[in-house]
């Protein structure tokens, strides 16, 4: 072994190396990167403005319109490319809010215990058993400012935090009695400091898995709500594309691309997130790592 081999080289951080070695996670990350690029470069990649309706309606796929046009004369390909923005933005924001709620509720309940835990656990279990989609629909019908993206984000976040909160509570219960936590407490660290400075770093992988899962769930929920016509039908998203394809009777006229393109994009994006999560699981559990 030479000295050169021992010298630390500039290299990717360890977590990235572990993720990259996992074949499923590598596939997921590359696919996710493709979607992020699609969203960021949408104005460059899309052949037309997604709101340009100057084309003839219901055109079949061709060189000018890769996936044809909608009944109202929008270019399907351009809408599909811009739709990546809606899904990613709503997924990330709603996922972040849901993860924050689950962190606050799960960690407070697990760390404080006692009456606070009983109450928070009850609320968590209640939120967990009440079926999410009917609750989202009912909430959306009442939330003022109906139709805005923010309404959709709020409705998705406040229905999607409970499962992750329960997992975090369980995890913190096993961590809170460790010696280093007791040492921190004896050293006079406050509750807030102990929870977020001492315990949270040891839960990073659980938090990240929960966040990615929440993003995937939010993307699916946004598409479902948009397909049901809840929210603003003029938003350009894969869910609204399917909503219009269904209400226009695109199926009857055989415009199969209008059905296949947004559906497959949704499924691929969710698959990318699921596969990244396989790798994040491996970060905390060395048994799952691939050699």
């Amino acid at each position, binding site marked *: 072994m030479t000295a050169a081999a021992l010298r630390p080289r500039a290299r990717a951080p360890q977590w990235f190396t572990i993720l990259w070695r996992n074949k499923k996670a590598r596939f997921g990350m590359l696919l996710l990167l493709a979607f992020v690029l699609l969203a960021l470069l949408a104005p460059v990649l899309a052949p037309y403005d997604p709101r340009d309706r100057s084309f003839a309606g219901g055109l079949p796929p061709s060189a000018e319109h890769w996936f044809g046009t909608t009944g109202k004369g929008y270019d399907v390909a351009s809408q599909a490319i811009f739709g990546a923005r809606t899904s990613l933005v709503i997924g990330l924001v709603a996922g972040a809010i849901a993860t924050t709620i689950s962190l606050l509720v799960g960690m407070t309940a697990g760390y404080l215990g006692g009456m606070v835990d009983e109450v928070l656990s009850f609320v968590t279990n209640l939120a967990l058993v009440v079926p999410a989609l*009917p609750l989202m629909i009912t909430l959306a019908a009442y939330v003022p400012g109906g139709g805005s993206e923010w309404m959709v984000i709020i409705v998705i976040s406040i229905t999607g935090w409970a499962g992750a909160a329960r997992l975090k509570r369980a995890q913190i219960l096993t961590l809170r009695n460790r010696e280093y936590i007791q040492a921190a407490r004896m050293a006079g660290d406050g509750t807030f400091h102990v929870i977020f400075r001492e315990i949270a770093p040891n839960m990073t992988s659980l938090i990240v898995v929960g966040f990615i899962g929440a993003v995937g769930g939010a993307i699916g929920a946004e598409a479902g709500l948009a397909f049901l016509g809840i929210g603003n039908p003029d938003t350009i998203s894969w869910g609204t594309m399917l909503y219009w394809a269904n209400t226009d009777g695109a199926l009857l006229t055989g415009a199969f691309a209008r059905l296949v393109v947004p559906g497959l994009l949704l499924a691929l994006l969710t698959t990318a997130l699921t596969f990244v999560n396989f790798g994040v699981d491996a970060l905390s559990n060395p048994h799952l790592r691939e050699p």
Partner: protein
Amino acid sequence: MAYFARRIGFFLLTLWGAVTLNFLIPRLSGGDPAQAILQRIAGKEARVDPAQLAAVRAMLGVPDEPLWRQYLDYLGNMASGNFGVSYTYFPYSVSEVIGEAVPWTIVLVGVTLVLSFAIGTLLGTWVAWRRGTTFDSVLTVTSAFVGTLPFFWIALVLIYVFAITLGWLPPSGGFSGLLEPAPTAAFVADAWPYFILPAAAIMITGPIGWLLGMRNNMVQSLGEDFARFGRAKGLSNRRLAIAYGARVAILPNVTGFALALGGLIGGTVLVEQTFNYPGTGRLLLEAVSNKDYPLMQTIFLFIAVGVLVANLVADVLYGVLDPRARRREAA
């Protein structure tokens, strides 16, 4: 017994929670249902006569009382099954309108739930037994991908392929309309073709959660000492897989039942809407688009209570099946 008492206590508490949530949602947002319906009657531009508003309020039971009074009245109404009058189907009561839709959803959810659980658990047992083979990895990866397909998208593809292109099955509705809905053989024969595609749309992704869950649990239980002991004793593979592996692995799948049910209900709402199937999910969306608040809220309550009851049944079943659960709770 402590186990069952605790489950029933949790059920009653969550029931109260769901009922209260249902009361709070509309009031927190500050909307006025009577105002909404008058606006709808009069058209968006017209100004609403206050006398008319008072009349509609009296008719719809939107009282000008303090909140706690309203809450007590509300609880009383819920307990006596008085859910008010539907705006859309006036003068029919909400109970009558929902009563017609509930059997459709119960049949759809019931059939797909039981079949999903059975198929998912069986397939999961099988792939766990053949773990590490090509068959295992193909089925696991395929399920992970298929599981991400949205319910409503599968429904649309099924309509496109089997109803529109091939013309084998009707694309929407619940029955032909030639017969009145009734629990008779003739009506079941009439409604049967309408049931196949909605059920299939749910069944394509329905079993996947149980399949993957069962596979993981079983791989774990087959690695435990008792399974190794069974193998050392010279038990047949079949007995080892079923009596030693699956018997233990199925328990967490039973607890997953209630959570899966919530997802399945969501899927049913989407599928019912896509197929125009005359169940509660479609009725819920119809109520939302018509701002029919009493109908909407009662449907939400029905769905929530249905899931809570199923949850209780699964919990009790779990306690009966697994003595360890009862002991843990007692300790």
